[in-house]
């Protein structure tokens, strides 16, 4: 088949809302876009374990500790689902990790901010997982089968993540004045970076291009960001906290909130690696990977030995 014909058949399939599977023909650009997006998503899940891992040993109760552990373990799982989805496109796990370590592949900038105290565990679960959910619910309808199936599985697991964070915030917000202040400051710190998670405005978004036409993305950055804002402002009000945006107000005509502008210069700085924790996050990942090497080697050696025993017998 000619490429033009193939491209038409491919687009027709997408327009019929049929999923593209790994062995189907696909344009090279589609494959490339997916590898970039899925690997960035996978790396975010994995690097995202660090800011929360920071608080496991200092969780204020046993309940809080087991919850945080379970949440972080889920994120490791999410990373694995997504790496496997990326691998179906013909890239190996080694290459994916190599691209993370070399800086060629990105992960969500939100994880380059530090988590300063326990209230940040609340704000991260509530806002960061909350923003991730809005994005991932939308991606359940992405056109690539393995990515879509991964998103369905992840969405089932995410809702506890957001609820446990919101519960922490609610508890602190009705605690001592000092605790309430900590909760408000955590919201102040994490609100804007959380809005940044949806990426640049649609008009400045370099990667949108064919992503909408090919239904890799189903909603634009600005649409998703608006959805998140509209859900979250009310949740803040319920627990007596205030979103740190003086321009935030309900727009009756549009049926949604108007909001202030994100500081895009800071956003781009963090994307470019100048955030407070960029270097630390990558260093830690490399170190953990290197230190785990003997385990991989030992398991490989053991498997080989068992294999040769079997052959002798």
């Amino acid at each position: 088949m000619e490429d033009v014909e193939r491209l038409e058949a491919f687009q027709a399939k997408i327009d019929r809302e049929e999923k593209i599977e790994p062995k189907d023909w696909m344009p090279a650009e589609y494959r490339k876009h997916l590898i970039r997006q899925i690997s960035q998503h996978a790396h975010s899940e994995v690097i995202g374990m660090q800011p929360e891992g920071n608080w496991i040993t200092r969780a204020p109760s046993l309940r809080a500790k087991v919850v945080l552990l379970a949440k972080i373990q889920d994120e490791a799982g999410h990373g694995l689902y997504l790496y496997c989805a990326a691998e179906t496109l013909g890239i190996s796990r080694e290459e994916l990790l190599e691209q993370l370590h070399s800086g060629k592949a990105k992960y969500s900038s939100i994880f380059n901010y530090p988590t300063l105290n326990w209230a940040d565990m609340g704000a991260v679960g509530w806002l960061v997982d909350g923003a991730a959910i809005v994005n991932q619910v939308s991606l359940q309808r992405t056109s690539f089968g393995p990515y879509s199936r991964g998103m369905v599985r992840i969405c089932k697991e995410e809702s506890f993540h957001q609820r446990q964070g919101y519960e922490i915030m609610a508890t602190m917000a009705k605690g001592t004045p000092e605790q309430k202040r900590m909760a408000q400051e955590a919201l102040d710190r994490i609100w804007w970076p959380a809005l940044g998670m949806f990426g640049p405005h649609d008009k400045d978004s370099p990667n949108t291009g064919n992503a909408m036409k090919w239904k890799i993305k189903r909603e634009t950055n600005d649409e998703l960001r608006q959805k998140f804002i509209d859900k979250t402002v009310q949740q803040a009000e319920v627990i007596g906290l205030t979103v740190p945006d003086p321009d935030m107000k309900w727009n009756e005509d549009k049926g949604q909130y108007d909001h202030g502008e994100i500081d895009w210069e800071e956003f781009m700085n963090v994307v470019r690696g100048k955030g407070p924790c960029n270097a630390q996050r990558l260093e830690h990942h490399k170190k953990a990977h290197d230190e785990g090497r003997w385990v991989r080697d030992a398991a490989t050696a053991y498997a080989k030995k068992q294999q040769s025993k079997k052959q002798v017998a």
Partner: protein
Amino acid sequence: MSVDNQWPLWEVFIQSKTGLPYKHSGSVHAPDGEMALQNARDTYTRRMEGTSIWVVPTDAIVASSPDDSGSFFDPSDDKAYRHPTFYVMPEGAKHI
């Protein structure tokens, strides 16, 4: 042992309840079957999603090609008589 590889790939099939068919859930990397099972358990059944797991080396799976799916499946295209609705039942007959 200088190649730091991530081990072979295994496909994971999970039976959610006894009596139901096994369903593909995803894949894991592991050096051998035993570890593949353990990794599959940790990755895909953290919330009691399964009663039983199969793992199969990915390269042991032989798959039909999506490009040929038209001709591959067409032997069954024109065999409507394999479906119960093909048959005309006499008026008034019950439980059939």
